[in-house]
């Protein structure tokens, strides 16, 4: 790709970007949120049209004007935002547009399901290919996306943050697959904010900043800190700034909580001033637990206390009134009203407070939104930009702002830093520090073990709907967490966290 | 265990109207109902929701045939489209009485038989209105017409009758002819617009009283009450009142209640095996202030 330029109303997304990809390499694309990574790749995949520049494939200039023409050229893409049809099954999604068919048009269902099952199994996803995508978890949807991209014999594979919703096990298997493709001579573009992945699979790395290429390096020839400096244009010292006081009163207590088929016998408590990490593999029941805590789904057994009082929450509205806030993992489906502006999304849960006599105070709204745009460095042309036009990471920041703006003191964060660049993560961690300092408690669900280890005071690990282990942050390490998440060595690790019992 | 509707032993007569969303047919129903009560007839009245819907009318007839009524009285929504339905009734051996709208002449070729036609002619009514202008209004008029739904047979016939009557008359000029879809509010709007473009209009022929009554209010809103002569059609109660008050000049009366009465009476005679005339004309009259006052 030569001198690619692309502008959106109010934003210059790419400015004369050069980018090349060799067969059999993994070219990692790094950059802050809104740097233009996804845009560049969408131009290559035919989703967007470039304003200027040229695309060469094996030396030949090519015209990529639709996603279909990119596919014909052997370019396969995993987009950052899921592009799945919610009502259709996993198998149908995987082969959408390329259904195996017989007699010109009749779909061969057996082959469809068989091949889909095979692909998913290769990725280690234990999901039934005939389930509708809308009832899959975010991680499972991500696996479907990966399988979909792998189902074509591609020369070029674009992967835009494929691991942001995955946890350890799946990531390993995915990397295996990537290496396999590499050996077959497939060129892979890989975008991620998890820098540790770079060393593991990257061949070369290109850093983008504000739509410009800063530099291209061979992996191994450049230090991580240097890359971070190039991305952010500043130094970043402490990746996990932990500042914590002694925990205060109990905010949330859960005893023997169970929801049929999803989780059982869950007990823990959350106190003022602490961050409780919740780790586990995909499908271990973390999100299901969070949904129950927030009053979205009902529980069948056990009890729930908030601020020392037993409560039964029947709706998110009641949960919010009780002082809870819930950052959902699926920002597009559950977090954002995409066609509303940044300002309107940020203020949505706080409108009661921001309006008098039912009339919304726009000034206050704007102030609120501006505060977060500045403190979280959300890249947007204005407060009035519909969030659908923001980059993935910036959308995530909007969801986060929306809950930080509320008056909650019990926060449930489900994958809060999903898709967020490393610089902004630190800022978010600092915000979490401030929240705990102000007396809030945070239940942080995360699949990124470094984040769990770096920020939590105590750590719970879920396995198949049960709390499999409890640690304090001092006793935990990656290996212990992973073993517990896999359901091994439970009894040994279990005792440690009881140091501060829930009672 | 199931009620047998015919168990009363009373003769069952079905009356299928074009619609009941129109006072004209409500009057017809009333006339029929009164006769049925008087004569001890079990009367079933059915109508399509929409007057235009010839196929729904056919469905209703098919369904009533299933209940083996003793006689079927129908106001055809379409003069040709009714023929297949009549054929079905013939096949089931159910006598058919046609009301209000004549069946197309091609019925004979098709072999469709009906026992009688009770009613008057919409075309004739239109002619009456036209002749009234020629004869009673001194033959001088700038006429606006409010049409029904374009392509709807009833309105077409009235319109053709009217146009034929005034054709060739030197003093009568049609300056505007616009559809108001049989509706009162559209009668208002359309005539208000016509008045803007053609303030010289001095006579209005509306293919139904509902549209005329809407236009009446538009005229009042323009402050021109009394300046425009309005001739409606159907002679609804409200129109008669307007005629009595002098805000409307005339309307064509088809006496639908009488049609209803005659339908039930003759259906009963037919069921009893008596002969009935093949055509029973019902008066069609121009109603003006005199007629209203003498009632």
């Amino acid at each position, binding site marked *: 790709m030569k001198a690619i330029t692309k502008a959106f*109303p109010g934003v210059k997304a790419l400015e004369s970007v050069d980018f090349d990809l060799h067969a059999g390499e993994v070219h990692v694309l790094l950059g802050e949120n809104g740097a233009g990574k996804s845009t560049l790749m969408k131009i290559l995949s035919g989703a967007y049209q470039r304003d200027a520049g040229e695309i060469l494939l094996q030396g030949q200039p090519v015209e990529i004007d639709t996603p279909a023409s990119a596919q014909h050229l052997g370019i396969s893409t995993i987009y950052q935002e899921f592009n799945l049809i919610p009502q259709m099954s996993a198998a149908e999604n995987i082969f959408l547009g390329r259904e195996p068919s017989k007699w010109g048009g009749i779909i061969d269902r057996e082959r469809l399901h068989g091949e889909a099952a095979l692909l998913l199994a290769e990725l280690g996803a234990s999901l039934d290919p005939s389930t509708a995508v809308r009832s899959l978890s975010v991680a499972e949807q991500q696996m479907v996306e990966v399988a979909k991209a792998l189902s074509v014999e591609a020369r070029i594979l674009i992967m835009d943050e494929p691991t942001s919703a995955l946890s350890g096990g799946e990531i390993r298997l995915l990397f295996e697959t990537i290496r396999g493709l590499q050996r077959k001579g497939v060129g892979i573009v890989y975008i991620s904010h998890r820098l540790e992945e770079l060393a593991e699979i990257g061949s070369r790395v290109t850093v983008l900043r504000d739509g410009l290429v800063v530099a291209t390096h061979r992996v191994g020839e450049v230090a991580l800190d240097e890359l971070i400096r190039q991305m952010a244009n500043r130094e970043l010292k402490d990746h996990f700034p932990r500042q914590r006081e002694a925990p205060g009163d109990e905010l949330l207590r859960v005893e023997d909580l169970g929801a049929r088929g999803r989780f059982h016998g869950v007990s823990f408590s959350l106190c003022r001033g602490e961050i409780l990490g919740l780790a586990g593999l995909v499908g271990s029941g973390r999100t299901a637990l969070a949904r129950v805590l*927030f009053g*979205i789904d009902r529980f069948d057994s056990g009890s729930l206390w908030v601020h020392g009082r037993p409560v039964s929450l029947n*709706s*998110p*509205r009641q*949960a*919010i*009134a009780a002082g809870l806030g*819930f950052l*959902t993992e699926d920002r597009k*489906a*559950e*977090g*954002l*009203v*995409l*066609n*509303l502006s940044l300002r*309107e999304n940020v203020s*949505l*849960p706080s*409108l*009661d407070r921001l*309006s008098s006599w*039912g*009339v*919304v105070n*726009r000034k206050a709204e704007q102030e609120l939104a501006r505060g977060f745009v500045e403190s979280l460095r959300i890249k947007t042309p204005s407060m009035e930009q*519909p969030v659908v036009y923001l980059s993935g990471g910036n959308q995530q920041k909007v969801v986060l702002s*929306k809950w930080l703006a509320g008056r909650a003191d019990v926060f449930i964060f489900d994958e809060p830093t999903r898709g967020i660049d490393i610089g902004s993560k630190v800022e978010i961690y600092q915000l979490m520090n401030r929240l705990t300092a102000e007396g809030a408690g945070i239940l942080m669900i995360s699949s990124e073990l470094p984040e769990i280890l770096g920020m939590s005071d105590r750590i719970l690990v879920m396995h198949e709907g049960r709390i499999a282990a409890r640690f304090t942050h001092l006793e935990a390490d990656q290996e212990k967490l992973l073993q517990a998440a896999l359901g091994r060595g439970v009894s040994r690790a279990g005792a440690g966290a009881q140091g501060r019992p829930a009672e | 265990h199931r009620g047998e509707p015919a168990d009363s032993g009373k003769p069952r007569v079905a009356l299928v109207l074009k619609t*009941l*969303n*129109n*006072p004209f047919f*409500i009057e017809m129903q009333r006339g029929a109902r009164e006769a049925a009560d008087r004569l001890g007839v079990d009367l079933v009245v059915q109508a399509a929701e929409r007057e235009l819907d010839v196929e729904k009318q056919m469905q209703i007839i098919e369904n009533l045939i299933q209940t083996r009524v003793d006689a079927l009285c129908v106001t055809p929504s379409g003069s040709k489209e009714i023929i297949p339905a009549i054929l079905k009734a013939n096949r089931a051996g159910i006598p058919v009485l046609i009301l209000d709208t004549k069946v197309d002449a091609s019925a004979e070729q098709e072999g469709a038989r009906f026992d009688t036609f009770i009613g008057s002619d919409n075309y004739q009514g239109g002619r009456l209105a036209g002749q009234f202008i020629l004869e009673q209004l001194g033959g001088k008029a700038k006429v606006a017409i409010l*049409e029904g739904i*374009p*392509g709807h047979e009833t309105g077409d016939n009235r319109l053709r009758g009217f146009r034929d009557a005034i054709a060739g008359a030197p003093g009568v000029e049609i300056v*505007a*002819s*616009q*559809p108001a879809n049989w*509706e*009162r*509010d559209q009668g*208002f*709007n*359309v005539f*208000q*617009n*016509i008045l*803007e*473009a053609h303030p010289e209009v001095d006579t209005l022929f509306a293919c139904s009283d509902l549209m005329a*009554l*809407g236009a009446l*209010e538009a005229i*009042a*809103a323009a402050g021109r009450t009394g300046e425009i002569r309005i001739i409606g059609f159907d002679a609804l109660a*409200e129109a008669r009142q307007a005629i009595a008050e002098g805000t409307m000049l005339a309307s064509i009366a088809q006496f639908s209640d009488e049609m209803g009465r005659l339908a039930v009476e003759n259906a009963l005679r037919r069921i009893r095996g008596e002969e009935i005339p093949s055509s029973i004309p019902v008066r069609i009259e121009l109603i003006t202030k005199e007629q209203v006052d003498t009632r």
Partner: protein
Amino acid sequence: MSHLGRRFGTLLGLVLLCVTLWILSPYFLTPSNLVNVVQQTAVNAIIAVGMTFVIVSAGIDLSVGSIVAFSGVILASCLQAGAPLPLALLAGLAAGGACGLVNGLLITWGRLPPFISTLGMMSVARGAALVYTQGRPISGFEADFRFLATGELGFLPVPVLIMGVVYLLSHLLLSRTRFGRYTYAIGGNEEAAQLSGVSVRFHKSMIYAFSGLTSAVAAIILTARLNSAQPIAGFMYELDAIAAAVIGGTSLLGGEGTLTGTLIGALIMGVLRNGLNLLGVSSFLQQIVIGSVIITAVLVDALLKRRAS
């Protein structure tokens, strides 16, 4: 940007239409005709207000026409029974609001698709109006009531004034208040709204009740204008109201739309019908012209939007 562009496009469509008519007919651009047009638009425009709220919330309301009829006959029968004007008006409004509320409850608590619940209400309210009146219109009212249609304040007819007030208040409601914001949020992403603590059921019910209410306001004007309330009034009004909203840029997928757009949409339809009458276009051709103009007006808009992006 896209919002503004959208509204601008339809406005251009309206202006083009007006210019065309001004060229074709000497009667079009006269003050009295313009007042006529706006007055004739009032009923549809007011119904389209509630419809816009409903569509913005990703719903649909097919029952508006029948609610017009039902609340009209309730109002008229109160008037004829000698009830004082304010009471009769209130009864009419209450009837409309109640029908709308039932729609809302069926949708939220009964979990019916809006199309089904309002389709059912469309039949039921119409049937109720017919049964209540035995199919006969109720006509002839006192001057104080008829003033609502025939009166003028300054040179503005009262219906136009009512329409103005309804639009102003509803515009504020939709664009400035929490209620309005929740309407957009529900239409844009109902689940996200729910998870943000919006009481979706309550708000949706209110939105449909509001639509019933605006239909009842339209019924007042219609009844006063025709000096008659008919059980068959309002036939197919739903189509005109939806058309006004959609021409005005409201998306049937929800989450998008403005009342200024709807007003422009309603005016386009009103001006078009007025123009056809002024020009004396033959009745068969009218349908072709109406269809083509609607398509063209929105095409202008779509083209402008494509340009912009």
